[in-house]
């Protein structure tokens, strides 16, 4: 296999946008292309990560439409759909195409226009990930699954609402340093949990999870330019290596898991990625985790191997996951505050790691970051990708 590098990275501001989906995706590619000096006609393939074009935007063939809009014919074009892990899946497929020697340069872009529909409809759209007979008919949504999981996990390991709030507060603070984050709002423990008005400001979504335990519904796009590592210096000064990729699946139905508190796919995907990269969890300097719900940042940090199971919340108490701590997690603000346009998320996580590893992350820079880890969590952990990047 050939080594693969990331030579360009960028994302749109995550927010609500009036742009049509394809324009949003094109803007995502432009942010990545603006980050690298490259003749666009050298791009051989465009992979588009998106989950909801058909359901939310009544559109199909979006990958072909993106190539058309960019005018980079006859580049190959494919759509990659793996639920909320579509982004990391698209990067994996681009990586494989280059590693195998079929391509030299691949453009990967992920995007979603979720706010084209009502909150009810976007919740329903994501809920179609659940099993149609065993779960969906009951009104089970992703927040419901997170609530069922959180109840068990919190009871088992002594995690309190305050621990969950610490995750939210940290990620909101980080997003304040990220100009493209969706939520630019600092929050406090008092304001979201302890003051009388907290029950109004921070209502229950799926108990024990409250509004500030959940990511927002966002529009946005993010892009990466992948390149054979031996050609990377032709196009940029600071390429970042894709060092390891792991993936694992688990049961679609949450109640079928032997231990519903075991995020087995996160564990297996991470182990595979670490083996491939030749590094250990203790070597990681910065991580982007899939905190669609605050409980997931804690649980993923343990299943990835950064902390012993049942101790992730203690690391947050000690401030170890803040920027400047032992292992900064979600310096971008995470899904919680950077936002979660589902097709874009896995790519946006890697965009942040690229900036961190190049030393280009501005006020949220993690000092001397050389190895970065990302976890992109599809479904409710039934299809997970772990990606490890290294400074080139």
């Amino acid at each position, binding site marked *: 296999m050939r080594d693969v590098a990331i030579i360009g990275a960028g994302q749109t501001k995550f927010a609500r946008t009036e742009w049509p989906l394809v324009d949003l995706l094109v803007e995502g590619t432009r942010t990545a292309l603006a980050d690298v000096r490259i003749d666009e006609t050298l791009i051989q393939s465009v992979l588009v990560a998106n989950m909801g074009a058909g359901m939310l935007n009544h559109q199909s063939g979006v990958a072909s439409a993106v190539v058309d809009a960019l005018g980079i014919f006859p580049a190959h074009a494919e759509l990659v759909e793996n639920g909320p892990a579509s982004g990391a899946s698209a990067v994996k497929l681009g990586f494989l195409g280059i590693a195998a020697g079929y391509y030299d340069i691949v453009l990967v872009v992920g995007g979603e226009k979720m706010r084209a529909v009502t909150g009810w409809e976007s919740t*329903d759209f994501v809920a179609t990930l659940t*099993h149609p007979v*065993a779960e969906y008919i009951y*009104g089970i949504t992703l927040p*419901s699954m997170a609530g*069922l999981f959180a109840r068990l996990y919190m009871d088992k390991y002594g995690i309190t609402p305050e621990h969950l709030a610490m995750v939210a507060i940290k990620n909101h603070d980080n997003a304040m340093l990220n100009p493209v984050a969706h939520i630019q709002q600092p929050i406090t423990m008092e304001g979201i949990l302890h003051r009388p008005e907290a029950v109004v400001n921070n209502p229950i979504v799926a108990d024990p999870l409250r509004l500030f335990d959940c990511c927002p519904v966002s529009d946005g796009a993010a892009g990466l330019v992948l390149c054979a590592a031996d050609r990377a210096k032709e196009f940029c000064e600071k390429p970042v290596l894709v060092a390891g990729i792991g993936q694992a699946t688990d049961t679609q139905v949450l109640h079928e898991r032997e231990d519903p508190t075991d995020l087995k796919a996160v564990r297996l995907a991470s182990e595979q990625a670490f083996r491939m990269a030749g590094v250990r969890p203790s070597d990681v300097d910065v991580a982007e985790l899939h905190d669609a719900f605050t409980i997931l940042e804690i649980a993923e940090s343990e299943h990835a191997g950064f902390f012993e199971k049942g101790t992730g919340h203690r690391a947050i108490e000690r401030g170890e996951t803040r920027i400047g701590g032992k292992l900064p997690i979600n310096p971008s603000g995470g899904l919680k505050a950077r936002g979660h346009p589902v097709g874009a998320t896995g790519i946006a996580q890697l965009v942040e790691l690229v900036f961190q590893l190049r030393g280009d992350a501005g006020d949220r820079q993690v000092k001397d970051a050389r190895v970065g880890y990302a976890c992109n969590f599809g479904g409710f952990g039934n299809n997970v990708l772990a990606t490890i990047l290294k400074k080139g």
Partner: protein
Amino acid sequence: MKKPTAYKCTKCGRVTTYARLRCLSCRNERFERVTPAETATLVTATEVHMLPVGFDVRFLRVGIAEFPDGSRVTGWLVSERIPPGTRVDVRWEPIRERDGEKTYGFTFHPSG
């Protein structure tokens, strides 16, 4: 009242409360229809306030319960909030009406 059906793998005995083409444990494709037990133990539950399209209620209580044989089921908790570990009666009742047809599902009621 309609009776619920569960599916028991003829090879390894794993039971699921919904039809599958292949057994999750052993990939066998033959199942025996069985009637699930009428009682179970609540494993976890949540009260959901952000509902998808088609639910015209303020909130739903959903949970996972475990039958005595170790198989589990997702369903509606039809009671005030009760803690995990509580014994529940499991019923098969109309839970929604879609396109004019009743949809049946599992509901959990505190025992006794």
